[in-house]
C-alpha cells in the first residue's frame, strides 16, 4: 500500500512549522494544566497526552477543515490542530461557566456543530463510556453524506477501548455502509494499568480492523510525518468512497493514566526507550536537518506556544464558575437557554483563504 511520492513531500514550509506549532501548543497547554492542577484549580482528573501529541496532530492535520473529529481525552493535539482556542480547554478543565459545557462536563468534552455547508470542523468530544464515539462518528459521516456533504469523520480510540462492543458495532456498521470514517487506534501500551497483552491477543492493534474488511495499517506514532502520510492516504480513500479505514498507531503513554497515577506498573526501561523517541524532539530534528526550518524559528515557536498557553490559562482562571441557579436549565429543548460556541482560531502559520 506504500506509495513512492509521500504526501508530506507536498507540505509547504509554513505547514511543517504549523504542525510543529500545534504539537508544541498541545504540550504547553497540558503543562499549564499541570500547574493549574497542582494549584487545585482543575476539577477532577487531568489526563496527559505526553508523547502522543505527534500522532494526534499528524492524523488531524490530514483532514480538511470541514471534516469531523471525535477526540478522546489524549487528543489535545487534534483539538489544537482543528483550531480550538486553548482558552476553551482551560475553561473546561476548571469547570467555568464560560466553557462550552458550562462546567457541566469534564475536560475536552466539547461539541461544535456548524451548519451543513459551513467550512468549519465538526467537533464531538467523547462521553466517558469508551467506544461509544465510534458509532456516533459513523453516524456523523453518514449524516454528512446524506445531506450531500463529503465530510470525513476521524475518531481516535485507545487500545483498551477497542475491546468494547460499541467499537465493534460501530466499525462493522461503517464498513457495511461504506461510511467515510477513519479510526485512529492508539496502541500506547496501556489501558489505565492494563497492558495491551491483557486487552487483545493480536500482534498489532491495526488487526482490530480485520474482522470488518476495513483496510488497516500500522504507523510509528512518534514520527509525525509518517503519521501524516498514512492518515492522508486513509482520509483520501475514505473521502473517495472506499469506506472506513483504520490507522494503527504505535506509541507510548509517557505518564500515568491521570495525574494521580504514578504508573509504577510501567517498566522504567520501556519509558526510557520511548523517551528517546519523543515525537516533538524528533520532528524538530527532521525539520532542522531537512532544512525546512532553522533552530531559531523553532525556538521562537516554543516561546510563542508557552506564552500563549500561559496567557490563555490566566484568562480562564479569572472567569466565573457557573451559576447554581442554572443547574436544571437546558435539559430539554424549549427553554431559551443558550450555550456558548466553541471559539475556533487560526494558527499564526495559517494561509490566507
Amino acid at each position, binding site marked *: 500500500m506504500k506509495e513512492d511520492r509521500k504526501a508530506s513531500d507536498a507540505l509547504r514550509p509554513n505547514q511543517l512549522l504549523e504542525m510543529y506549532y500545534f504539537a508544541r501548543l498541545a504540550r504547553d497547554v497540558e503543562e499549564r494544566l499541570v500547574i493549574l492542577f497542582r494549584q487545585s484549580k482543575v476539577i477532577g482528573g487531568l489526563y496527559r497526552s505526553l508523547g502522543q501529541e505527534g500522532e494526534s496532530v499528524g492524523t488531524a492535520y490530514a483532514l480538511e477543515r470541514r471534516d469531523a473529529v471525535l477526540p478522546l481525552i489524549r487528543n489535545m493535539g487534534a483539538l489544537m490542530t482543528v483550531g480550538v482556542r486553548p482558552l476553551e480547554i482551560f475553561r473546561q478543565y476548571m469547570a467555568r461557566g464560560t466553557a*462550552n*459545557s458550562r462546567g*457541566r*462536563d469534564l475536560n475536552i*468534552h*466539547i*461539541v461544535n*456543530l456548524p451548519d*451543513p455547508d459551513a467550512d468549519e470542523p*465538526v467537533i*464531538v*468530544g467523547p*462521553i*466517558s*463510556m469508551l467506544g*461509544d464515539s*465510534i*458509532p*456516533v*462518528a*459513523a*453516524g*456523523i*459521516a*453518514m*449524516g*454528512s453524506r*446524506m*445531506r450531500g*456533504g463529503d465530510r470525513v*469523520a476521524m475518531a481516535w480510540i485507545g487500545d483498551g477501548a477497542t475491546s468494547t*462492543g*460499541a467499537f465493534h*458495532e*460501530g466499525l*462493522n*456498521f461503517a464498513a*457495511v*455502509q461504506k461510511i467515510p470514517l477513519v479510526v485512529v487506534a492508539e496502541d500506547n501500551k496501556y489501558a489505565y494499568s492494563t497492558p495491551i497483552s491483557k486487552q487483545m491477543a493480536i500482534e498489532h492493534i491495526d488487526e482490530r480492523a480485520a474482522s470488518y474488511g476495513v483496510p488497516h495499517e500500522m504507523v510509528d506514532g512518534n514520527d509525525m510525518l509518517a503519521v501524516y502520510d498514512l492518515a492522508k492516504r486513509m482520509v483520501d480513500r475514505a473521502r473517495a468512497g472506499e469506506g472506513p479505514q483504520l490507522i494503527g498507531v504505535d506509541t507510548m503513554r509517557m505518564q500515568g493514566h491521570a495525574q494521580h497515577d504514578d504508573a509504577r506498573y510501567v517498566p522504567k526501561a520501556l519509558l526510557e526507550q520511548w523517551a528517546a523517541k519523543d515525537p516533538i524532539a524528533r520532528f524538530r530534528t527532521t525539520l532542522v536537518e531537512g532544512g525546512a526550518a532553522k533552530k531559531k524559528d523553532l525556538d521562537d515557536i516554543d516561546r510563542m506556544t508557552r506564552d500563549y498557553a500561559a496567557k490563555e490559562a490566566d484568562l480562564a482562571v479569572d472567569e466565573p464558575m457557573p451559576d447554581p441557579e442554572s443547574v436544571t436549565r*437546558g*435539559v*430539554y*429543548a*424549549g427553554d431559551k*437557554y*443558550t*450555550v456558548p460556541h466553541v471559539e475556533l482560531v487560526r494558527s499564526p502559520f495559517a494561509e490566507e483563504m
Partner: protein
Amino acid sequence: MPVITYLEAIRQALFEEMAADGRVFVMGEDIGAYGGAFKVTDGLQERFGESRVIDSPISEQAIVGSAIGASYMGLRPVCEIQFIDFIASCFDMLTNFAATSRYRNGAGVPIVVRGPCGGGVGGGPFHSLNPEAYFLNTPGLKMVEPSTAYDAKGLLKAAIRDDDPVLYFEHKFLYRRIKDDVPEDDYIVPIGKAAVRREGSDLSIITFGAMVHTALDAARQLESDGVDAEVIDLRSLAPLDREAILSSVAKTSRALLLYEARRTGGIGGELAAIIAEEAFDYLDAPVVRVASQDAPVPYAPPLEAAFLPTAAKVVDAARTLVKY
C-alpha cells in the same frame, strides 16, 4: 374519517413525515424490503429508497449511536428496535449519550427510538417487556406510548418533530386489534398531554397503552354495580401530565394505577409519589397499583394470563377501593 389500525397509523405517520421532511430517515433490522418484523415499515423502502430506509446489522448500539451522530448533522433518524426488549442492548447509548448531550453541550439529539412492547401474545420473557421504568430516572429522554390509532399517528409525528430523543413504545397487542378514526390531514398529539378516556366520579384509573382498553372494560363492568370510574390515558410517560393526574384524583379522591410492567419498581411508583405528595388532601383511600406479577414474563398462555393485569383484577381492586 377513515378507520385504520394502530399499526397502519404508525406506518402512515412514517410515510407522511418522510414525505414532508427530507431529513427524516428510518433505520433498523429487516425494515427495508421485508418491511419489518411486524410490517410497520412495509413499503417505505420502495417509496423512499435504500438511503433513507436502512437495513442495519444486528447492532442496537450502532443503530442508536449512528442515529445520534446523524442527528448532530441535522437529520431526524427514526430507529426501529425489532422488539423493544432489545433496547437493553443500547441502554448505555440512550441514557448516557443521547439523554445528556443537550445538557452537556447544547447539542440536541432529535432521534426517535421505536419498537413493539408488551405482552399478551405468548412472546415469553424476551419479547414482551414494557421498559418504561428503565428510562424514567433519566432526564433528557422523553417517552410516549399510544393506546389508539389516532394517538399512534399523532404521537409519532410529534416525536419525529421533537428536538429531543423520544422513546416511542408501540404495544404489539394493539397493532391489529385496535382500529379507529384517523384523519388523513396532518395533525400531532402533543407530547406531555394525557387524555380522559372516560369521565367518572368514583375513582380514577390512571393508565396507558394496552391497559387503557383493559381499564375501559373494567369501567363498563363496574358501571353495573354503580361504580363510575374515570379512565386517564397518560399517553406520555416522560414528561408526565401532572395536571391531568392531579385534577382527576382531586375529583374522584381515589386512584388506581394500572400498568402492564412488573409491579415493583414500575411507573406506578412515580404516579403514586406524585399523588401522595400533591393530592394527599384529596385522597379518601389508599392508592392502589394493579400491574404484572414480580417475575420474568412467562410464555405459556395460562402463566401469562396469571401474570398480566386483567379487567377482572382491575374490577376487584376498584371495588375494594370504592368500598374503602
